[in-house]
């Protein structure tokens, strides 16, 4: 056991003295005496540890608390129901803690893996609710030159709050853009709905007439009813797609077959493109790897590009063609939307993704900037360029989902 007297001249080490004093009462709970020698041999590091605002605790190779700073001790006193002090095993403390949350096992495993050398670094965002809801970034790294770990707790409650608020604001904005797109499509969506309704009405009226005949043709009646059921499903599909657009709320990510998302979205604009005399060519890669994403948001991005393309061709002379393509490039899926419209000048091209920038007389200017933030939040890229002959092509690529 090392005499504490060797360090009396450094007043900053008073705290450390108490650690050593307590530990000396129970030698069996301290293994790794060699570590302590190393720690105490560097007064500057110890002073540094004490003066850190971050909550830091040092563990030996078994997870036993060897040293800590005031900040950590205060934190433990606030959050933990049991005293976890020098000589106590932090990992056991976590395992037994009454407030074990879903993250606790992961935290324990992570620290253990740093202690046994299987990981070089571990971090986790860890919430505690006592005495008030807070979130910490807990990082564990190996203790340099000895077996053990340094675990630090960084309070990120404020940062998380700001992130959450800004995420909510972005979602609200994205929702507004979706609603305004719905407004643009309203006329053609109403037309979409009128079709199945007209078919249902005709079939129903025809069935009634057949039944009223002297010899009712029941085969016609049966066929009419079967078609009514089918057309009702068709009408429900149109409404379902509309509802998807109007959806508001927290982002949900699922594994998506992007070809299927595109085909579904193209149905939304079916009438719109016919009314505008746009001919559509669709070239979808035969098999796409699944993409992890929020279906509503990604549909919104695609819809944004398609509506922009259709708008770009309004009043254009000659062919109005819209080309939609999906390809697999490496481990990413790329979607391209090509138009034969007016095209954009260099000045516009530079600013097209900026918020509030628009080339449309009644445009809000939010569509592409929101689309960009959606794609980037998915880890992808969104870009556009002029075609060699005429018009623009916009592309976005998304990483394939991990297996």
């Amino acid at each position, binding site marked *: 056991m090392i005499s504490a007297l060797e360090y009396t001249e450094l007043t900053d080490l008073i705290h450390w003295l108490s650690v050593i004093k307590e530990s000396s009462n129970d030698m069996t709970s301290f293994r790794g005496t060699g570590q302590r020698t190393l720690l105490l041999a560097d007064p500057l590091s110890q002073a540094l540890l004490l003066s850190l605002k971050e909550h830091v605790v040092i563990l030996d190779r078994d997870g036993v608390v060897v040293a800590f700073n005031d900040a950590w001790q205060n934190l433990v006193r606030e959050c933990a129901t049991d005293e976890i002090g020098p000589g106590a095993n932090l990992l056991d403390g976590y395992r037994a803690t009454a407030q074990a949350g879903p993250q606790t096992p992961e935290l324990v495993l992570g620290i253990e893996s740093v202690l046994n050398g299987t990981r070089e670094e571990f971090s986790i965002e860890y919430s505690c609710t006592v005495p008030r809801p807070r979130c910490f970034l807990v990082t564990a790294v190996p203790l340099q030159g000895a077996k053990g770990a340094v675990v630090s707790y960084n309070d990120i409650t404020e940062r998380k709050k700001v992130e959450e608020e800004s995420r909510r604001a972005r979602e609200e904005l994205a929702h507004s853009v979706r609603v305004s797109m719905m407004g643009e499509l309203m*006329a*053609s969506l*109403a*037309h*979409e709905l*009128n*079709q*199945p*309704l*007209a*078919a*249902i*009405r*005709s*079939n129903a*009226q*025809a*069935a009634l*007439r*057949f039944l009223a*005949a002297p010899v009712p043709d029941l085969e*016609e009646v049966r*066929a*009419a009813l079967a*078609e009514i059921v*089918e*057309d009702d499903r*068709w009408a429900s599909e149109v409404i379902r797609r509309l509802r998807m657009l109007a959806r508001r709320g927290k982002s949900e990510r699922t594994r998506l077959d992007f070809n299927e998302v595109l085909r579904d979205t193209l149905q939304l604009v079916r*009438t719109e493109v*016919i*009314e505008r*005399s746009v001919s559509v060519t669709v070239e979808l890669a035969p098999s796409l790897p699944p993409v992890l994403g929020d279906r509503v948001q990604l549909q919104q991005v695609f819809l944004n590009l398609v509506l922009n393309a259709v708008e770009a061709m309004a009043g254009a002379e000659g062919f109005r063609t819209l080309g939609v393509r999906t390809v697999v490039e490496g481990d990413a899926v790329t979607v391209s939307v090509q138009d034969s419209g007016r095209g954009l000048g260099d000045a516009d091209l530079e600013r097209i993704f900026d918020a509030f920038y628009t080339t449309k007389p009644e445009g809000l200017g939010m569509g592409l900037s929101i689309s960009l933030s959606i794609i980037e939040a998915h880890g992808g890229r969104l870009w556009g360029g002029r075609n060699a002959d005429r018009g623009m092509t916009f592309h976005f690529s998304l990483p394939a989902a991990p297996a």
Partner: protein
Amino acid sequence: MEDIRPVVLILDDDVSIRRSMGRLLRSVGLEMQGFPNAGELLRYERPLRPTCLVLDIYLPDMNGLDLLKRLTVTDPELPVVVITGHVDESLRQRALRAGATAFLAKPYDEQVLLEAIQGALLRPVRRPVRRH
């Protein structure tokens, strides 16, 4: 002996519309021939029977109004009833000026449609359209 029963031609890209309208026409004893696009109609050899055309403006391969104007020239004796899911007054005016006998909105009332078709079948010769 020639078949002189009338036949109604239906040009609409929606198969549900063609099927259901066909059934409605059959329930009143009228025969029907359906076409999914302008190309098919233009290739069709019309029999020498009283005929009328029910036309949806929104076609995949050709503008319905352009088709109507063309038919005024190539088939002046073919009456055309226009039906459409997307109604606005200017469209109605343009359709009537282009030579349509009647203009109906979807979902259409069966009575209105049948009367329009009957009216069309009884007036096989269309007067030339007067331009204002």
